[in-house]
């Protein structure tokens, strides 16, 4: 909390982003470039009567007051360098004014993002409370903090910022990912609600408020005439896209309902803009100077604004589609074109004071089909994620700022009569309007809108930030009652977003509104629905009706013959949509199967005897994630890109062969990629791989040896005294491996090699493992006290050596992490060795150290192996781990020393010999560095051959030297 308040204080000290021009002016010329993008906000003055009027009159003053205060808060950090620097040249300088603007912006983004994380901590909470509510509440709290800290409200939702940056990101996302078919299927209804409904709401609210005012229901202080109330009615009546998206995406009503409310909220922008401007001009001209001609001008203006906006959008859509046709060689900037041109569509419409939202929406809808076909898969993902990220963060900021703005008491004045009557009127007229229009529409609609649909539509008429920004833009010179309007707008927005947003979910549940099914079409549906379209078109033609399907078919013909030819790449143009759909579905099925059986997958993956398959796993997971986003272009969800669609089990089975095809290819590709890397990889990776190879080999060997484990062990101990030390340590090590592995329930199915070779063996091993665990547990308390000091000096001191294996072991993830083996290994995706391999590797280490497969101190390989464990220890101890496995050792993430449960993986019969061996090991570890290098050099010589031998050749027995490539 302190950190938060500090952050706030810094941002407060920096003032709002709106006084950027001050910053720009004070910056040295070379810095202007960096400040320029943000500095465009003053240019927004198209909307803004003048920066001082609504903004921050005392900017310069506030700056001079607050800036000196900032260094003092930061004294803890800044005093050091200052003290050291003395006079003259300062080593570290306080450059607040230099970084201020981006710093503030970044801080706000950070606050907003962190807020989101916090909200989503509790799943149950977020399902009940919409995020927008929480954000507004957070905004209120932050606003209060700022107000208390600085005595004046420096932040509020700046209309320029809102209209030029925040709104476009949301509208752009909404337009680009608009389900076009659904949108046009319901276009009639959407237009009806957007135009007629908004007009109805605006006029009725305005007139009725005026009536209430006349009747004395509103205080005398509210100095407003009919025009003022009509103006207010116009801005308060429009359903807000931001609020609708935020609330409805969590409700998941059926798509028709969603698209109607959502489409309405986007398309009513033209009406709002025109009404707003017309009334502003009327108000400014004064009621007496309005002539009849002006009303007709208003109507003409509406047509121009809406149609012009749409045309601008479509023109940009064509340009965009055309441009992306030629980006094949510059794939990397493909996404940029999309963002730029969609945004330019918005700005151009603003430039000509057309409806910018309409423009952007239609640009998005229009270009989507062609652009998605033209750009590469990666660009598609980039576009999708970037748009979602931007829209999500913009939405967050809007709601937070709405909350913050509400705190500023100086901006608004309260009148209960006005607030209450406005609330009542907008609710009543919305309901009446929806009912009336729906009655009319149902004459023409194929599927009539039901009563419950109408209830949800009425209730879903949320007002939001657009209304607030518009009301803040009002000119107080002309609109005397601006403060009252601001207060009322804030209340209305809060009421609709918070109260209605909170209650709409229970309402939808209670009314049993058909929910949307988050389901992707199957190939059958794709084909048959296409056939349905053709059938309907033909039947309409036969019946002599020029209905909707007739025209859609006409459009599709036109699109196919001209537009697609012009706007699509040749290669894409010749592809069949059906084939694309088929491929998409194939990929999706493969992914869903993988996703559904995370654990199954892991085991399945391990059951594939190819090592390359394992190494490719992290990569493949990425690929799947990446491909999954592919099919959900229709998803309007801002945040969640769909959760795994529940595919039927039978479907899974049926698509098994498809899966096989899909799964094997990337593996093979990756293998080559992998081996190409093989020769050039850095030290760490190579070592990781070596360890992994060795481990794999050990495992294989172990299958041979498991059956005779006990014997071997005895034998090995004898041999330890005898000459053949190599064999003994290899045979010991693998045995441990297996038992460790089998101990873990998740990993049990992961050891398929065993199953292949001898199904009875794993059971045996498992028993050993389990009993072993049981036995160890009681020993834990005894060992624990020792291990803590041991952790400190284990590596150097032979005296502390006995518990040292515990230090090594406690770092091993399988101790606590393995039981819940993550289904998705992508955490480790940056590593060459995936988690399971690392675990296996660690197991081998542990078996080495703890079992103390009685090593020959003189033998270099033993010491090399023990060195592998060394870095794990050292990394935990905070010492520089220069050892072989340093990379993976640190990768595991060193846990605290108190967590381990199995202090020593000693076997009871070995306990006597163990401590001595450990001492020897320790001594070796601290002294020996070169051996690992020699060994690894030998190991990496022929990895591919080695791999193949692992895959195909059944374990060739406990041949000790077989680890060396020469023996493979």
């Amino acid at each position, binding site marked *: 909390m302190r950190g938060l308040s500090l952050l706030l204080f810094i941002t407060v000290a920096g003032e709002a982003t709106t006084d950027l021009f001050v910053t720009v002016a004070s910056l040295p010329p070379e810095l202007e470039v960096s400040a320029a993008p943000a500095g465009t906000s003053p240019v927004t003055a198209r909307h803004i009567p003048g920066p001082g009027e609504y903004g921050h009159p005392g900017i310069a003053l506030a700056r001079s007051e607050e800036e000196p205060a900032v260094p003092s808060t930061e004294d803890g950090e800044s005093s050091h360098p200052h003290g050291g620097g003395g006079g003259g040249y300062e080593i570290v300088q306080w450059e607040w004014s230099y970084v201020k603007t981006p710093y503030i912006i970044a801080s706000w983004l950070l606050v907003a993002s962190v807020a989101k994380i916090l909200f989503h901590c509790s799943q149950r909470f977020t399902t009940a409370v919409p995020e927008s509510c929480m954000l507004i509440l957070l905004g209120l709290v932050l606003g209060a903090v700022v107000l208390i800290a600085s005595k004046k409200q420096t932040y509020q939702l700046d209309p320029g910022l809102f209209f030029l940056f925040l709104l476009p990101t949301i509208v752009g996302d909404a337009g680009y990912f608009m389900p076009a078919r659904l949108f046009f299927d319901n276009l009639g209804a959407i237009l009806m609600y957007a135009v007629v409904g908004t007009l109805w709401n605006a006029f009725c609210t305005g007139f009725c408020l005026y009536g209430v005012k006349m009747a004395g229901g509103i205080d005398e202080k509210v100095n407003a005439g009919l025009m003022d109330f009509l103006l207010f009615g116009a801005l308060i009546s429009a359903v807000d896209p931001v609020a609708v998206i935020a609330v409805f995406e969590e409700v998941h009503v059926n798509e028709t309902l969603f698209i109607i409310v959502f489409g309405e909220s986007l398309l009513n922008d033209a009406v709002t803009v025109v009404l707003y401007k017309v009334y502003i001009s009327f108000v400014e001209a004064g009621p007496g100077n309005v002539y009849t001609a002006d009303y007709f001008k208003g109507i003409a203006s509406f047509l121009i604004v809406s149609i012009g906006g749409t045309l601008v959008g479509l023109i940009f859509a064509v340009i965009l589609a055309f441009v992306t046709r030629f980006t094949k060689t510059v794939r990397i900037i493909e996404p940029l074109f999309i963002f730029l041109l969609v945004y330019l569509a918005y700005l151009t419409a603003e430039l000509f004071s057309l409806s910018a939202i309409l423009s952007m929406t239609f640009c998005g809808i229009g270009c989507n089909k062609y652009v998605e076909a033209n750009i590469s898969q990666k660009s598609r993902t980039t576009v999708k994620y970037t748009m979602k990220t931007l829209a999500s963060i913009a939405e967050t900021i809007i709601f937070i700022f709405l909350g913050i703005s509400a705190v500023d008491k100086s901006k608004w004045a309260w009148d209960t009569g006005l607030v209450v009557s406005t609330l009542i009127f907008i609710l009543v007229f919305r309901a009446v309007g929806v009912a009336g229009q729906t009655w009319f529409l149902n004459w*023409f*609609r*194929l*599927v*009539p809108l039901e009563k419950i649909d109408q209830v949800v539509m009425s209730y879903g008429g949320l007002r939001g930030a657009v209304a607030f920004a518009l009301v803040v833009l009002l000119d107080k010179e002309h609109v005397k009652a601006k403060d009252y309007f601001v207060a009322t707008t804030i209340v209305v927005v809060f009421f609709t977003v918070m109260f209605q947003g909170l209650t709409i979910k229970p309402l939808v549940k209670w009314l049993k509104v058909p929910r949307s*099914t988050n*389901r992707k079409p*199957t*190939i*059958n*549906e794709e*084909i*048959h*629905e*296409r*056939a*349905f379209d*053709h*059938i*309907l*078109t*033909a*039947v*309409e*033609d*036969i*019946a*002599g*009706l020029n*209905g*909707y*399907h*007739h025209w859609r*078919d006409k459009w599709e*013909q036109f699109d196919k013959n001209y537009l697609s030819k012009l706007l699509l790449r040749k290669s894409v143009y*010749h*592809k*069949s949509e*059906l*084939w694309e759909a*088929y491929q998409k*579905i*194939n990929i999706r099925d493969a992914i869903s199967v993988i996703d559904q059986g995370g654990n199954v997958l892991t085991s399945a993956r391990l059951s594939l005897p190819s090592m390359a398959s394992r190494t490719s796993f992290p990569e493949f997971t990425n690929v799947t994630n990446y491909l999954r986003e592919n099919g959900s272009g229709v998803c309007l969800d801002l945040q969640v890109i769909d959760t795994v669609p529940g595919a039927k089990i*039978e*479907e899974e089975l*049926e*698509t098994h062969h*498809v899966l096989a095809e899909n799964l094997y290819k990337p593996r093979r590709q990756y293998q080559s990629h992998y081996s190409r890397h093989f020769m050039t990889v850095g030290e760490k990776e190579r070592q990781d791989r070596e360890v992994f190879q060795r481990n794999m080999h050990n495992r294989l060997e172990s299958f041979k040896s498991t059956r005779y484990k006990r014997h071997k062990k005895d034998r090995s101990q004898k041999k330890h005294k005898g000459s053949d030390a190599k064999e003994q340590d290899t045979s010991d090590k693998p045995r441990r491996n297996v038992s460790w592995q089998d101990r873990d329930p998740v990993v049990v199915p992961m050891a398929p090699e065993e199953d292949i070779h001898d199904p009875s063996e794993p059971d045996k091993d498992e028993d050993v493992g389990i009993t072993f665990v049981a036995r160890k547990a009681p020993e834990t308390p005894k060992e624990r006290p020792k291990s803590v000091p041991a952790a400190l000096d284990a590596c150097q001191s032979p005296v502390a050596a006995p518990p040292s294996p515990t230090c090594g072991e406690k770092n091993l993830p399988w101790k606590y992490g393995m039981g819940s083996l993550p289904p998705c290994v992508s955490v480790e995706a940056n590593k060459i060795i995936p988690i399971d391999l690392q675990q296996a590797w660690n197991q081998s280490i542990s078996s080495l150290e703890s079992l103390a497969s009685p090593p020959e101190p003189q033998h270099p390989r033993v010491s090399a192996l023990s060195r592998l464990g060394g870095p794990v220890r050292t990394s935990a101890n905070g010492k520089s781990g220069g050892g072989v496995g340093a990379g993976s050792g640190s990768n595991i993430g060193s846990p605290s020393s108190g967590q381990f449960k199995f202090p020593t993986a000693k076997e009871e019969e070995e306990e006597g010999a163990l401590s001595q061996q450990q001492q020897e090991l320790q001594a070796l570890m601290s002294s020996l560095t070169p051996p690992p290098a020699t060994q690894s050099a030998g190991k990496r010589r022929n990895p591919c051959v080695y791999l193949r031998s692992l895959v195909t050749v059944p374990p060739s027995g406990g041949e000790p030297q077989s680890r060396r490539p020469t023996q493979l």
Partner: protein
Amino acid sequence: MKETGFSHSQITRLYSHFHSLDKGENGALSREDFQRIPELAINPLGDRIINAFFPEGEDQVNFRGFMRTLAHFRPVEDNEKNKDPTSGEPLNSRANKLLFAFRLYDLDRDDKISRDELLQVLRMMVGVNISDEQLGSIADRTIQEADTNGDMSISFSEFTKVLEKVDVEQKMSIRFLH
């Protein structure tokens, strides 16, 4: 005309259209009459749909048959949903709509869509830019997805099951003018 469920004005309107199509002036439409409709010529499934208008083995369709076929596409109305089930299934029921679509695939009328039949329809719908193997894999996949009894063809019940999540009532309906 009760069985079709069309209103009087709709019937009148359609009858006049029927006459305008009927170039032979004999009260029945032939295949040629249908093929004269220009839009049907560019409809990939045009021929199949024309065939659907003709009862098996005949090449004339009178107004009654014409209306019966069109009635499949009448939207389902509210008052029909809760009508008593004894009166028999109306032509525009979900099952009948589906059956109409099913018959388009099922050329040999054995109540099964075989792989070949599916391939033919797919070929009509995708154009020439897609290779036979691609089309074959689509067809295989489609059949696999729908086939529950393992006979490598889609029966009507399987067809219905596959499309059970689709809003057939809406997607196989046309708004006839009142």
